[in-house]
């Protein structure tokens, strides 16, 4: 199968993730959309790695997984703490600083 198709899929997933971040309201869903974008990047990296016949891309894909895991730890901690205060994870409710 032509590797370029995987790139189209990666671009599609990235776009779905990015539009999700812009459209959705729930902080957890936003966060999942960011993870989707990271996974789209992984798919692109692995495809390019195959295309160029070297391992650099696959190595960054591993690093991305580790970083994504660390981001989950930090992100969920922040989201849970704000949820316990406000009983809502909607990002529209976080508007104390509007002008």
């Amino acid at each position, binding site marked *: 199968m032509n590797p370029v198709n995987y790139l189209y899929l990666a671009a599609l997933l990235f776009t779905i993730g990015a539009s999700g971040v812009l459209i959705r309201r729930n902080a957890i869903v936003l966060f999942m959309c960011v993870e989707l*974008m990271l996974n789209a*990047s992984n798919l692109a990296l692995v495809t390019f790695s195959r295309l160029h016949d070297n391992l650099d891309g696959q190595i960054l894909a591993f690093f991305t997984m580790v970083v994504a895991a660390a981001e989950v730890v930090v992100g969920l901690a922040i*989201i849970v703490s704000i949820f316990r205060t406000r009983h809502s994870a909607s990002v529209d409710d976080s508007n104390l600083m509007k*002008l």
Partner: protein
Amino acid sequence: MSVPLLHGAGSVHSVWMAAAGGNTPSIPAPQLEYGQLSPMLIVFGAAVAGILAEAFVPRRARYTTQVGLALTGLAGAFIALIVLASQGYGSTKSGLIAMGSVAEDGPALFLQGVILLAAVVAVLLYAERGLDPRTEGGPRDAFTPQGSATPGGEQERQATRAGFASTEVYPLTLFAVGGMLLFPAANDLLTMFVALEVFSLPLYLLCALARRRRLLSQEAAVKYFLLGSFASAFFLFGSALLYGYAGSFRLPEIADAVNGTATTTAGLAISTHNDALLLIGLALVAVGLLFKVGAVPFHAWTPDVYQGAPTPVTGFMAAATKVAAFGALLRLFYVALPGLRWDWRPVMWAVAILTMVVGAILAVTQQDVKRLLAYSSIAHAGFILTGVIATNRQGLGAVLFYLLAYSFVTLGAFAVVTLVRDSKGEATHLSSWAGLGRRSPLLAAVFALFLLAFAGIPLTSGFTGKFAVFQAAAAGGATPLVIVGVLSSAVAAFFYIRVIVLMFFSDPQPNGPAVAIPSVFTTMAISFGVIVTLGLGLLPQYFLDLASKAAQFTH
């Protein structure tokens, strides 16, 4: 029974190894130059020691231990940096280390020095515990006693009464500093991405830990986290596309692929025909970096996060993050993509103009000191971008000098903000700053000095920096940009002067804020800011020479 099984496992293993060794490319073990990596290693080591101290040192002794560890680690790293610079790394010796992943060259060493000094000042601000009135539970710093407790809840009250303190902020800051040291030195996109995350993640947490106004603080953390991780996802996808184009993450090899001088492989023969990969990749990576810099249109997080975060953290972010992010931006544009400058320069022109104009105009409408400083930092990002666009050695030196000057002015200004307080904590609304010059002439004079430096009035560091940047931009053929820069400086000067007039020439409010008496830590931080601001304004030549000597990237 078990012996033959073991034998079986062994033979299977050796067969598998032989098969794997036959035709897959093997990864050679990297050779690391520990001496040249030592500034980062010392900071990371101190951070890990801080985590262990958090686990094993009794609560009473933690504050002293953590402050000592943090300051020692930062000072040690700074000394290591000076030793490296005096040995000629950064000027005469090649700075490429860690298999070419890290470049300890002139700009990297200079910016690492600025980051370390800024971090020392920030840790001094963190360590301040004399501003809140002393009540039961002992002295209080700027951070919540327990990050996990609900704001205003019973658990929080108990934690306050028991005198808990979030001493985790020191190791978190050290981790962030370590990432920031690596970021401007990262010579491939993989290292850059990891460094970006290493310094961002602790900052997200630090934002959420304010003692007063915790709702604002948590809100700032959520916004910073969601937008920050969004931006890093862009950076990552951009890196993937650049890798797809060039077949490597190394910035010099990307430059080779752009210039067409790379050794052709089957993959490169296909990918370098596709400029879309290169241009979209460049755009996405630049989005990730411009977000960290706080350039318009990626600035939306800046005012909210600066306002909500604990003020010492805001000062640290405003100074050190900007330095690190500009370092990476410079390296990307000057090392990886100089061959593409006719494509990226027009876009960066637009970004720089927007950043200067929007930052300056929106700052005029602000009523909160921290938000005002945030918009001012956006405008300053625009001024620094004009130096980046110059794409000559003079511009690089000017940007380095500007970052040095700017970070200490901004840290000093936020340090002053921590001192003006009323019963609810810091009084950040501008109206409550009216007449501050009559109540506390010294503090108001110091703040006025910082504001004049922001405005770029002669005899302050801000003037020297701005002059250098604009001169370089004009030499690099960006005269219209300089004109916009000067005009928006004038607009910006209006609101800085407005605050000075408010402080000195209006009557104090009857129940206005009081100026807290700072301990030695904040006094040291503010004095350092004043000394650097005046020093770089009156006698800038040594540091200008240093910056222009450092302004040479290793390829």
